[in-house]
């Protein structure tokens, strides 16, 4: 059984740690891209960086007239940009991508290419009124503070991100940007595999968090026959507040395996690809779950409407606390996601699309 080829041990975890700690805010993915290039260079037949900054890599098959199968994961993460200088060493900032303002008070950040440490300050509790503490502080009132000693060392336009360091605790993985460095790490592992009868196209995309902008041009360029998008989706598998009722809005659950998308705000997954994946999972005994249909979205939202259309499906590693300073995902979920996609990569061919849809 192919299961035992799925190895996530020290080197894979080290790589995920490196990817999670790296800074790659949407529009500024270079640091992550360099790590990925270094990893895939010996694994793929060709690679290039396109005009948008997507990293496109290909593994050829010897099969003639092979299906073109695309795997996509986004390199970018949510973060910040300094937009205005305030008092010495302090800057007003804007969010890049969707970040809940309630995650921002009193957080450490890294600013600019040199990763200057700074903090998003929060007013002393002693000087706030109860009425004030009942309200969310709007982002416009917050500042990134590099200390007066750093006045002039950063500039308006610099990117910033949370300064979280990755750690592992048993089966749990904690870190920033696991959305979607888990997907990036998954694609790197897939690149180690010899392709079956399909031409394998890896897109490490940019600017997913700004509206799936990199994926659109990557898919245009690749002209794939089908696409598998690997991302991280929120697990809301937490109790209800002040209620014993069952949580029916969990989206997906940690530890229940890869979350296969049926439909989200941007894409109705291609039923043939859903069936292809679930059949593999059942045949191989890989646990999986369906992500609850609803809002949210992945790069598939852009890919599936590219050119004449690309049958697409997304698979996510579940993660709690998306777009916050520290996400929580499970090693076992990552492993099962990888196991599922290993099989998909090997078995994918045009016949999948011959089934009724």
């Amino acid at each position, binding site marked *: 059984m192919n299961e035992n080829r799925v190895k996530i041990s020290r080197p894979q975890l080290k790589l995920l740690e490196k990817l999670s700690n790296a800074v790659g805010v949407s529009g500024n993915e270079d640091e992550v891209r360099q790590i990925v290039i270094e990893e895939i260079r010996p694994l793929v037949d060709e690679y290039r960086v396109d005009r948008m900054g997507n990293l496109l890599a290909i593994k050829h098959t010897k099969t003639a007239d092979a299906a073109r199968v695309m795997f996509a994961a986004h390199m970018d993460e949510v973060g910040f940009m300094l937009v205005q200088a305030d008092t010495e060493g302090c800057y007003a900032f804007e969010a890049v991508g969707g970040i809940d303002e309630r995650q921002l008070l009193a957080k450490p950040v890294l600013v600019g290419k040199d990763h200057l440490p700074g903090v998003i300050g929060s007013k*002393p509790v002693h000087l706030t009124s109860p009425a004030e*503490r009942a309200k*969310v502080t709007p982002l416009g009132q917050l500042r990134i503070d590099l200390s007066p*000693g750093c006045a002039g060392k950063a500039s308006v336009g610099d990117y910033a991100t949370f300064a979280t360091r990755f750690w592992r605790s048993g089966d749990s993985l904690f870190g920033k940007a696991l959305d979607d460095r888990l997907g990036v790490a998954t694609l790197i592992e897939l690149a180690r595999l010899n392709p079956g009868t399909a031409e394998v196209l890896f897109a490490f995309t940019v600017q997913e968090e700004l509206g799936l902008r990199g994926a659109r041009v990557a898919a245009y360029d690749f002209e794939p026959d089908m696409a598998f998008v690997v991302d991280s989706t929120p697990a809301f598998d937490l109790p209800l507040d002040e209620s014993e009722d069952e949580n029916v809005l969990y989206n997906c659950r940690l530890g229940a395996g890869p979350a296969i998308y049926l439909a989200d705000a941007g894409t109705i997954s291609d039923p043939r690809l859903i069936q292809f994946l679930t059949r593999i999972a059942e045949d191989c005994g890989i646990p999986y779950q369906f992500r609850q249909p609803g809002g949210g979205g992945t790069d598939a939202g852009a890919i599936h409407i590219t050119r004449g259309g690309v049958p697409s499906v997304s698979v996510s590693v579940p993660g709690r606390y998306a777009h916050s300073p520290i996400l929580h995902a499970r090693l076992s979920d990552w492993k099962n996601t990888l196991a599922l996609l290993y099989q998909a990569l090997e078995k994918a061919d045009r016949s999948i699309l011959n089934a009724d849809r």
Partner: protein
Amino acid sequence: MNQIESFLHELLSAPGVAGFEGPVCEIIRKRWEPLTDEIHISRVGSLHALRRSSIPGKRPSLMIAAHMDAIGLMVKDIRDGLIWITSMGGVDPRILPGQLVTIHGAREYTGVVQMLPDRLVKHQPAGGAPGYSQLFVDTGLSANEIQANIHIGDVISFASAPTTLGDKYLSGHSLDNRASVAALTVCLEEIKDYRLQWDLWAVATVQEEVRTVGAHTSTFELKPDVGIAVDVTFAQEPGLSTYETFPLGKGVTIGSGGNIHPALHRELKDRAEEIDLPYSIETMPKGSGTDAMAMQISSAGVPTLVIGIPLRYMHTPYEMVALKDIHRAGRLLARFITTLTSGSLESLFKGGAA
């Protein structure tokens, strides 16, 4: 990194939530032992270190105090594999989502504080500020592991790493009031080779953040003639510039108000000016909110003064202080101590409180 900066990094890496100051106390004891003549721990856990006067017979005594406890959190409930929390000392719940913490259970466990997502909160509108009822710590441990190793009442400390910013500033948790512990250390080093006319008690107090427990009990036990509390005060920060705030890195504050003996206030100002040490006057119309509040009303009363070190983002895990101000507070204390004579007590207070 100079000596005080590395000592501070060490202090800030140790937990010491109010009521559980053991680990940080041990670090301070080691640092102060070679700088003092006698050292002991009080019944409630405060550290008392004596620099003995070289004058024989009865001599006055001065107590300089900085609290070593810090704000933190405590486990209040365990359910659904999550750890539900309450605060120890004043912690604005709005700063908690996304904070890295250490739970002091059977051993230390790292976790992250988070809030319930809006979709699971029924009793208030979406997008509201989180209160303690929605805040929990996620450790990644299984329900069984949690049950075996973590219990209601376990203390939780902030796990933010101390970070030097722009060479001369420091960010971290518990700078309130470890910055002042460092200032007392600077002072003890400055006066190391001086012969003192007064006895000097350097005290690291416990539970200031809760009931000023250490200040009450240590002042009673040591019966000083004069008491000085060193504590952090509000620095100007973005969006905050009132009479209660002082520029960061531009000098210490000398308190003024009911909690401050006017003679001591004048004396400290004079000492600061003699050595060109920058300071601001911190008006304290309603009291100082420091250990000096308890020290002043101990036994038959003790003349007290407060020296403040400006600090940004007080009571968050990312407080910010200027190393310069810490050195200044230590040097001002040292100047005051080394200029005290056996007649100072009488000349300072002969006119009562006026």
